[in-house]
């Protein structure tokens, strides 16, 4: 209690406490002097002696203040006020320091928000850590069998990237959706906003004419109709009853999914049940079951399922199935990139800190006189160090506050810079965790970069500092510390710039790649009649014939074609096939999957894909003519080396009839510009559209029209969508884009990573330049006197110029050497994001070294010129 009241007294009655202390010490002084007068001293001598014996009224008072409770709080507030005042007095320094920090902290808070939102934020389902993914793709039959047999998991399945046509609600709409097992919502633990989810058995034929809508679809297409439940709507030409609406934010398995229908499980159709529509699995661990138990049971279960297939399934089918936490699986594609970017932006923060630390250090060297004065007036060295520390924390808080504001901006920039397909990106936002993260960073960096200057100030020799006037003397320790800070920060910047250089060069190489076709002046549009419309093949063929005929009539359009999949669009239309001379031994190997294009005759001409042998398709290749295919050069080379591929045969594994190879065309980079393809595809073939078949053993209903045109693509696009509506209003047309845009979009990930990395590296470079310039010009200003002496003793202007420039260059070169060494070790992290170069590409390393040397010269040039212009008389007189 006594402590508390004294704390209150100290804080609130500061003046009277101070006054009392002053009185007390003076009373002591008087008593002491009186004693001496009694002993026979003259009053003046007595007071002088007493003062000496006392050791200074102010020092004693300060020592008392130090021990008082509340003095800590008090002095912190005082320090903060004082800090703010001094910072306001040197706006240039403050601006540079606060901006450096704001850039570092803002970038980090923004990037952290993304990383947290995408990688770390728990999935929005109950007990999200119990949700798992079983790797691999499974047919309906296997899903049912696994769900029945598993003891550790409740197993559900869902299709990915399924599209559905919604008709009868204004213009026909193509929607992303998912067909799911009836237990999917139960497994996820997801509840509806309105209505109910699927019940067991509702994925059986006869009970499956139902649909669940997303909140967005309900809102936009059904005007948030409160009586939507029970209403029939037309999906892919089939009437389904709406049974539920999901709450906003629910979107599984990917963002953009707008509706869910049950699977259609029909064991009597055994080919579809076991042979088509392979799906990923999602499961929930049963109570008390562990991930290990799930992992231990899954492979044996799969080997039990293999004999159930109505055809012979390879023994090694999904033999590597693994049970992973669902969250880890959802973000596995992006986590590498995001973590690399987070490390990069972390380096930027380190650089910002080093920058501010060296600025503070330089400043504290310049403030030696002030500090010495405070020391001689009774401030203990601990007190001075604390004051400097407080000043840096104030600085860091200002930087942190501004940084947080920047983070808001950075977040939206980052979000738009990252590919829109990044899972969970849309929901990432600045929340309290990010605020906490930024604040912790601000305080930590404040402490971190406050320590060095504070230590150096605390070690100050008062008498020496005052005697030298605090101007010329700059402790070698602080100079060395500052130089190593700068060299270190240059080194970090070098690492980032080299990384950026590698990514730039890699992307440039990627854009120089010949994709095997010519994308210029091609407009594409996606036309998607429902699958049921194409049940009758002739109807679908006629639709596209008509569309192509009318498209040819659009003025400015020189050539048209259609294809089921655009190269580089990311879709993979694989068909398991048997090729002549390569019999499939069912129990031993899986059939090779061929990338299968369903194209109209002019496809190769429109995209300028060269014919190497044989012929391409003609209008004579119809549904009734003999079945033919065209293969790519690599496929021919792989399966029929040193043989004539023309006249060879192949067939989808479920077909009886063989198709004859009539032509070989040049290879096209179908999957990505780097020339990779999914591991499970083994080649490329093309079928004439009327004869075509997809993985679902049906004719592809969705096709992309390609229009080669010299005219304005926007006008052509407008005409084409009107044209589709004119032919059949129930057929949605959309995704109108140029082929160039498709190609560009295929490098979106590399591009966004490159831009983000480059902006981080650019920031780092600017910070490093400012830091180097700051240190060189500051230390040059401090050496004005020395320069004056040198000139007076006969040094030439050129000599002085070289001296200062050399200093700057030495700093940068030391940092460069360090940075290159660090890069040799670190750029390995980028290897998987690079195309066409190694992580230690000598050209990039060389170019960056040149750039940095130039920057070193630039940073030293102005201080050097100023130093060379020093007039010895002025410099010497100034002392």
């Amino acid at each position, binding site marked *: 209690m*006594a402590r508390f009241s004294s704390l209150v007294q100290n804080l609130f009655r500061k003046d009277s406490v101070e006054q*009392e202390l002053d009185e*007390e010490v003076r009373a*002591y002084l008087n*008593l002491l002097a009186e004693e001496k007068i009694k002993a026979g001293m003259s009053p003046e001598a007595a007071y002088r002696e007493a003062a000496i014996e006392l*050791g200074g009224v102010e020092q*004693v008072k300060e020592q008392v203040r130090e021990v*008082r409770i509340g003095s800590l709080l008090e002095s912190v507030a005082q320090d903060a006020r004082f800090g703010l005042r001094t910072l306001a007095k040197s706006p240039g320094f403050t601006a540079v320091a606060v901006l450096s920090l704001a850039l570092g902290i803002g970038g980090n808070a923004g990037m952290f928000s993304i990383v947290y939102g995408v990688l770390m934020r728990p999935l929005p389902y109950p007990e999200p850590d119990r949700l798992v993914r079983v790797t691999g793709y499974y047919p309906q039959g296997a899903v049912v069998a696994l769900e029945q047999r598993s003891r550790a998991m409740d197993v559900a399945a869902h299709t990915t990237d399924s599209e559905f046509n919604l008709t009868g609600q204004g213009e026909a709409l193509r929607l992303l959706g998912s067909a799911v097992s009836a237990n999917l919502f139960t497994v996820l633990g997801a509840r509806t906003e309105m209505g109910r989810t699927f019940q067991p058995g509702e994925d059986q034929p006869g009970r499956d004419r139902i649909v669940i809508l997303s909140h967005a679809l309900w809102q936009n297409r059904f005007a948030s109709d409160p009586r939507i439940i029970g209403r029939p709507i037309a999906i892919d030409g089939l009437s389904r009853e709406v049974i539920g609406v999901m709450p906003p934010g629910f979107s599984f398995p990917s963002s953009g999914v707008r509706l869910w229908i049950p699977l259609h499980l029909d064991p009597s159709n055994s080919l579809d049940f076991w042979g088509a529509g392979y799906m990923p699995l999602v499961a929930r661990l049963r109570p008390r079951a562990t991930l290990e138990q799930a992992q231990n049971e899954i492979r044996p279960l799969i080997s039990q399922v293999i004999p159930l297939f109505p055809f012979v399934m390879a023994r090694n089918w999904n033999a590597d199935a693994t049970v992973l936490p669902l969250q880890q699986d959802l973000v596995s594609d992006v986590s590498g990139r995001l973590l690399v970017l987070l490390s990069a932006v972390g380096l930027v923060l380190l650089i910002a800190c080093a920058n501010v630390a060296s600025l503070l250090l330089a400043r504290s060297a310049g403030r030696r006189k002030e500090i010495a004065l405070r020391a001689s007036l009774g401030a203990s060295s601990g007190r001075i160090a604390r004051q400097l520390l407080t000043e840096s924390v104030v600085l860091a808080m200002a930087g942190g506050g501004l940084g947080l504001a920047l983070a808001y901006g950075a977040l939206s920039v980052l979000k738009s810079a990252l590919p829109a397909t990044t899972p969970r990106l849309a929901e990432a936002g600045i929340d309290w965790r990010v605020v906490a993260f930024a604040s912790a960073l601000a305080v930590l960096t404040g402490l971190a970069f406050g320590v060095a200057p504070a230590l150096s100030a605390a070690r100050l020799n008062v008498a020496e500092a005052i005697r030298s006037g605090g101007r010329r003397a700059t402790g070698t320790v602080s100079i060395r510390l500052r130089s190593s800070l700068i060299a270190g920060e240059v080194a970090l910047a070098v690492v980032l710039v080299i990384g950026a250089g590698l990514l730039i060069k890699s992307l440039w190489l990627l854009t120089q790649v010949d994709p095997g076709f010519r994308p210029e002046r091609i407009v594409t549009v996606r036309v998607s009649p429902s699958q049921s419309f194409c049940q009758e093949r002739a109807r679908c063929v006629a639709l596209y014939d008509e569309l192509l005929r009318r498209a040819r009539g659009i003025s400015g359009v020189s050539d048209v074609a259609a294809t089921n999949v655009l190269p580089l669009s990311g879709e993979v239309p694989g068909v398991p096939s048997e090729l002549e001379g390569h019999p499939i031994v069912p129990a031993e190997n899986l059939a090779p999957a061929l990338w299968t294009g369903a194209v109209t005759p002019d496809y190769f001409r429109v995209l300028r894909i060269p014919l190497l042998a044989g012929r391409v398709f003609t209008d004579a290749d119809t549904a009734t003519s003999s079945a033919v295919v065209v293969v790519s050069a690599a496929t021919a080379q792989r399966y029929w080396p040193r043989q004539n591929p023309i006249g060879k045969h192949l067939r989808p594994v479920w077909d009886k009839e063989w198709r004859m190879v009539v032509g070989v065309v040049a290879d096209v980079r179908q999957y990505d510009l780097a020339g990779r393809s999914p591991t499970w595809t083994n080649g490329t073939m093309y079928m004439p559209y009327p004869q075509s078949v997809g993985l679902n053993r049906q004719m592809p209903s969705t096709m992309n029209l390609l229009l080669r045109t010299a005219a304005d693509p926007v006008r052509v696009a407008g005409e084409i969508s009107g044209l589709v509506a004119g032919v059949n209003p129930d057929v949605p047309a959309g995704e109108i884009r140029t082929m160039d845009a498709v190609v560009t979009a295929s490098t979106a990930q590399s591009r966004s990573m490159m831009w983000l990395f480059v902006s981080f590296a650019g920031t780092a470079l600017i910070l490093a330049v400012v830091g180097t310039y700051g240190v060189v010009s500051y230390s040059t200003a401090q050496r004005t006197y020395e320069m004056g002496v040198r000139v007076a003793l006969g040094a030439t202007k050129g000599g002085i110029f070289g001296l200062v420039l050399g200093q700057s260059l030495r700093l940068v070169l030391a940092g460069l050497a360090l940075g290159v060494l660090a890069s040799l070790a670190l750029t390995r992290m980028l290897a998987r994001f690079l195309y066409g170069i190694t992580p230690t590409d000598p050209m990039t390393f060389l170019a960056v070294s040149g750039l940095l040397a130039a920057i070193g010269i630039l940073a030293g040039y102005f201080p050097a010129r100023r130093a060379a212009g020093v007039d010895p008389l002025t410099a010497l007189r100034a002392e």
Partner: protein
Amino acid sequence: MPPSQTNLLQGTLDLLILKTLALDEMHGLGISRRIEQITKGAFQVKPGSLFPALHRMEEAGWLASSWGESENNRRAKYYRLTRAGRRQLGAEAENWERISVAIASALQAS
């Protein structure tokens, strides 16, 4: 001053101040003169040590202070022991004795 020495001296100084004030209330100079006297000049307490100690002990609740008149009618701040201060004196004195006995026997043992 190295911290170890400060700590030793601080503990000792506290004990001496408590001991000095056990008889009567006193002002600062009085306390330092009395300590000189009872330690036969071995301890000379400087104001730089005395005042922080007094204030610290007042914060701790061992001492109380009030303004009064000195022998020659000068205003001065007088310190006296509180009840907690007396308890502290007992405890510190006992502690001190134990240490000095321990050190004495250690010295004899060698």
